[in-house]
């Protein structure tokens, strides 16, 4: 096996796991901001309980977002040192901005939010959650700036074979950025909304206590999912324009693709410049999922007089649809990234020049090690999430009043 293939596999595995978690992070934090703000404004304790319950799930989910994100960040240097050597001057800037503007503050705020219940004034505590959400969006923005640049390098000039930044504004107005960012954010909201609706549907099906609470979150989840799925479709189709124009080889051949290949052959030598066909197959399935999830609109009229709940089968449908957004986000990214092959930066830096010059056996060890580690952590994290989702909103550890410890053995909760 060659180092390049192993490095690509490793990137694919770690990013995919990362995105499964951060999509939920981005979606849920938006809904949490809404719920905690409602609590602040109305003072209704129902909103506090909702915030604590969903906040608990959000925080558990967050763990793997961090763990996988750190691995990704290091991977650029460990496995893709050519990327920093040839395009680091341009590509590194948005990533550096992201870590400083977004992650640094996001985690600082989140730590204070988790431990700030009963300790900070309610306004400050709410402001912290707003801070977490805004920085999460900022991080999505800057990371997409970086990714869009790899899809379509702009605002640079080659000097001695190294890309130098000439126009930072061009990075921000990159045509492959806007629609993709909208699409990713909408997809995250869809994922978060579906998660909320499904967990609530499960509780309503099991007829656990807290009917009113789960009814509220079912409604929030379904309405969010419906609005988001429409945005997903809109931004999704809008992506075809720029992608077709700037990445002619992505979705199959054609005269512009042939012209691009001819040009690359003259610049970089002969080679296979078409991406694997697999990527567009995934895209087709994603679009199919997009239309399937569009049916969530049909459930909205049933919110009238709680028909969704009383008919029961809509709850089952919601529950069964939970995996769909997760599958779709992965397929979408695979299409976007594999479709960029064989380029690390489209038309500028081939992947085989971007990969680090390390021994294949070392790369293999690192691939196996990190995949096993992150895979195991992902599974345990989902198990914990499922347990806490099933336990319900009776007594989440998040926001528990001080003085209560759970180190003493306690009766096992009924639904754990």
């Amino acid at each position, binding site marked *: 096996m060659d180092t390049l293939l192993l490095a690509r596999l490793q990137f694919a595995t770690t990013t995919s796991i990362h995105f499964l978690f951060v999509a939920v992070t981005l979606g849920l934090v938006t809904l949490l901001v809404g719920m905690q703000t409602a609590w602040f404004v109305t003072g209704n304790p129902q909103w506090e309980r909702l915030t604590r319950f969903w906040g608990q799930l959000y*925080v*558990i989910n*967050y*763990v793997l977002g961090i*763990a996988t994100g*750190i*691995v990704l*960040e*290091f991977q650029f*240097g*460990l496995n893709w*040192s050519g990327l*920093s*050597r040839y395009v*680091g*001057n*341009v590509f*590194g*800037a948005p990533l*550096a*901005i992201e*870590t*400083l503007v977004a*992650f*640094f*503050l996001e*985690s*600082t705020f989140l*730590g*204070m939010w*988790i*431990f700030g*219940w009963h*300790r900070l004034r309610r306004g400050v505590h709410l402001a912290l959650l707003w801070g977490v959400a805004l920085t999460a969006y900022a991080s999505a923005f800057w990371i997409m700036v970086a990714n869009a640049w790899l899809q379509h390098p702009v605002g640079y000039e080659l000097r001695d074979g190294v890309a*130098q*930044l*000439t126009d*930072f504004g061009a990075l921000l107005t990159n045509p492959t950025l806007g629609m993709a960012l909208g699409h990713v954010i909408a997809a995250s909201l869809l994922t978060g909304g579906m998660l909320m609706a499904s967990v609530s549907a499960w509780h309503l099906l099991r007829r656990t206590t807290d009917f009113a609470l789960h009814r509220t979150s079912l409604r929030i989840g379904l309405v969010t999912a419906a609005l988001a799925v429409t945005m997903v479709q809109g931004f999704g189709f809008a992506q075809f324009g720029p992608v077709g124009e700037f990445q002619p080889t992505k979705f199959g051949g054609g005269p512009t693709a042939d012209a691009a290949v001819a040009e690359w052959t003259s610049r970089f030598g002969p080679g296979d410049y078409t991406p694997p066909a697999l990527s567009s197959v995934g895209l087709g399935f994603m679009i199919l999922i997009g239309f399937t999830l569009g049916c969530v609109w049909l459930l909205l009229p049933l919110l009238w007089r709680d028909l969704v709940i009383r008919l029961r089968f809509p709850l089952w449908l919601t529950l069964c649809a939970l995996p769909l957004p997760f599958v779709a986000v992965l397929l979408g990214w695979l299409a976007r990234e594999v479709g960029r092959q064989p380029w690390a930066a489209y038309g500028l830096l081939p992947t085989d020049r971007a990969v*680090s*010059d*390390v*021994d294949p056996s*070392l790369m293999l060890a*690192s691939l196996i090690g990190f995949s096993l*580690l992150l895979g195991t*952590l992902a599974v*345990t*994290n989902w198990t*914990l999430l499922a*347990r*806490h989702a099933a336990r319900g909103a009776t007594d989440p*550890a998040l926001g*528990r009043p*001080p*003085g*209560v410890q759970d*180190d003493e*053995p*306690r009766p096992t909760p009924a639904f*754990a």
Partner: protein
Amino acid sequence: MALVWYALLGLFVAGYLVLAGYDYGVGLLLARRGTPATRRAGLTALGPFFLGNEVWLVAAVGILFGVFPTLEGELLSGYYPAVAGALVGVILVTAGVQQRSRPTGPAARRGWDRVIVVGSALAAFGWGALLAGLLQGLPIDADGHVAGQAHLATPFVAATGLALLTLVAAHGATFLTLRLPAADLPATARLARRLLVGALAAVATAAALGLLSDRVRAATRQPLPAVLLLVALVGALVAARAALRRGRPGVALAATSAALALPVALVGAALWPAVLVSTVDPAATVGVTDAAASGPTLRLLGWLLLPLLPALLGFQAMCWWVFRGRTDGRAPVYW
């Protein structure tokens, strides 16, 4: 210009070692036998600071990538095993601390605690090994490639990894003397003093091996500052022990913090003006200025960071201020 950025990079790396250092130290101390309540007390002491500590690493790597792209690639891939090992440790600690209290069963919690111990040890050892690797140089050839990873397998690297491990353990215990309820102070201080002796011994061993190694001597460009900083490091450890004996945990924590920041300064100063010293081809040695990004990128990031830095440090300081003082029955519990 490049010097300012280099200093800033040093600040973030040192900040990471100081802050996450006590996380790892407290993590290592979970290996002691103790009741579930004592283990929980240590994690509660970390509590609100934990998430804000590890981001210093994320920010340091961000600066490395944005400002020193050439260095980023060659540094991380040239010391692959050390970096990957430390990274696994960081991941285990991140996941372990945040998840250990989510299951309610004591067995599951004990399992997660072991994960935290192993992770803390790996992280501390790995970063120590990386610092040592920098000091002894690496075989970069004229195209900037590093052949193999055998250059890391030296006694100096192992000793420095161990030295950092003992340093974070002592730092973690010192942190607990400042955070745990006052009733625990005498016992924790005794533990911290013992660990400080171990740290002194480990640092002395690593220093001796370094002075004996001809690779380290050849790579060092500024011997005088390096030796002075080493003396300062030893001085900080001695001062920390003295402060603990006199019942001044705050001073002691400041001293152990200095002890974790000084190795970063030492590596930076000893190699200056180089960052990566080639052991095979002097022309392949990477200097600070050649590693830096070009003018426009540096200007852009400079204008951005200038107003941002006070905000970044300000919010961190807010976190320390809000949650200052000793933990007691009313301290929020989550990890």
